[in-house]
């Protein structure tokens, strides 16, 4: 990532990819990239963090990097990953954003599977993504210092600017995704909804594995008569509070599946963000946090459907813990 900082600072369109321990190792530099406003794009193939040594998929790596100040998106299948890649550059390099963008891809179950992909041509990419024009870069003829010391009398101001930029990038994210949809016919949104119109109960997932297994579980539960829908979070940072509140307000219960655990904390990271978004609001749903699919463990759609039914029943009885690890042998 330090090599990317140098590349990007000299005005190059820069890409890299990482995963798990590699992401943890570059943790220090990730903050520097975003605060220096370098529009680097990085694919993060989400895998567990050791120990015990585990190379399989979960979201422990990205969830330990929530506060790095990057735009963080999730691709839920191969087509999304392909399509969102140019979107990431377009968002990152927009003069209203100028922040790095992380595209998260579930390890193995998405990164290493063969899928049918609708490709685009070089002309399509060129039309959609203009050549990169850096807003500022290292140039011997016009010397500047990037990444200098920020003493106490300006550090707070720099953080405020960074926060404002990341929050405001929401608008650009939507614009770019809409633009992509108009050009190529595949539309993406910051928060995706599935069968939510009449749903009392919502399944809330992040990442491709739980997302697409969740579709099957929702279909099965609908066939059994449960009024359930699914919400997939594509944009993790900036967290889309407005969409989340619009979608979840007035529902009876939300079952949140997290693929990471905040050990000794509030449970699942996504559930804890949802609770923060809904806290103190009238008509807030009961929020149940389930932790599953850690370290590459498979969660089958039938199991997911059972877990959801069980959680909904317990929510109705008003007895449920702050969070629960499901499928664990005790």
């Amino acid at each position: 990532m330090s090599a990317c900082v140098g590349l990007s600072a000299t005005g190059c369109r820069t890409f890299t990819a990482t995963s798990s321990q590699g992401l943890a190792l570059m943790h220090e530099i990730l903050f520097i990239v975003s605060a220096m406003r370098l529009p680097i794009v990085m694919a993060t193939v989400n895998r567990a963090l050791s120990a015990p040594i585990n190379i399989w998929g979960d979201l422990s790596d990205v969830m330990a990097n929530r506060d790095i100040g990057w735009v963080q998106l999730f691709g839920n299948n191969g087509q999304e990953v392909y399509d969102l890649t140019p979107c990431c550059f377009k968002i990152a390099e927009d003069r209203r954003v100028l922040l790095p963008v992380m595209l998260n891809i579930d390890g193995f179950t998405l990164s290493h599977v063969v899928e049918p992909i609708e490709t685009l041509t070089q002309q399509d990419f060129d039309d959609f993504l203009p050549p990169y024009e850096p807003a500022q870069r290292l140039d011997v003829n016009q010397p500047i210092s990037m990444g200098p010391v920020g003493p106490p009398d300006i550090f707070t101001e720099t953080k405020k600017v960074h926060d404002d930029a990341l929050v405001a990038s929401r608008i650009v994210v939507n614009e770019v995704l809409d633009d992509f949809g108009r050009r190529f016919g595949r539309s993406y949104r910051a928060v995706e909804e599935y069968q939510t119109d009449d749903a009392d109960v919502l399944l809330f997932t992040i990442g491709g594995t739980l997302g697409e297994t969740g579709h099957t579980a929702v279909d099965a539960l609908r066939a059994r008569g449960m009024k359930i829908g699914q919400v997939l979070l594509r944009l993790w940072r900036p967290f889309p509070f407005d969409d989340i509140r619009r979608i979840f307000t007035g529902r009876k219960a939300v079952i949140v599946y997290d693929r990471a655990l905040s050990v000794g904390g509030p449970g699942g990271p996504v559930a804890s963000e949802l609770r923060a978004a809904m806290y103190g609001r009238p008509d807030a749903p009961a929020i149940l946090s389930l932790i599953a699919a850690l370290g590459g463990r498979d969660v089958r759609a039938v199991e997911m459907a059972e877990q959801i039914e069980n959680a909904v029943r317990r929510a109705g009885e008003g007895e449920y813990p702050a969070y629960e690890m499901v499928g664990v042998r005790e």
Partner: protein
Amino acid sequence: MTFETRRRIGIEVSIAQAEAVKLCRVDGIAAYPITPKRTSSSISRKSSPKGISTRNTSPSNPSIPP
């Protein structure tokens, strides 16, 4: 693997993304040395020791052989 027309192909997702990155005309990629198992020998030779390949040093953009 770049086509003149849009088409539907079966491909590993990580490779599909590398292809998309190539089509984005990136100038530089930093890659851990074990990563580019499919990089063509010509690009490997021209890569800098630190694993940074740039458009200037490799005639066809990084990562995927034709």
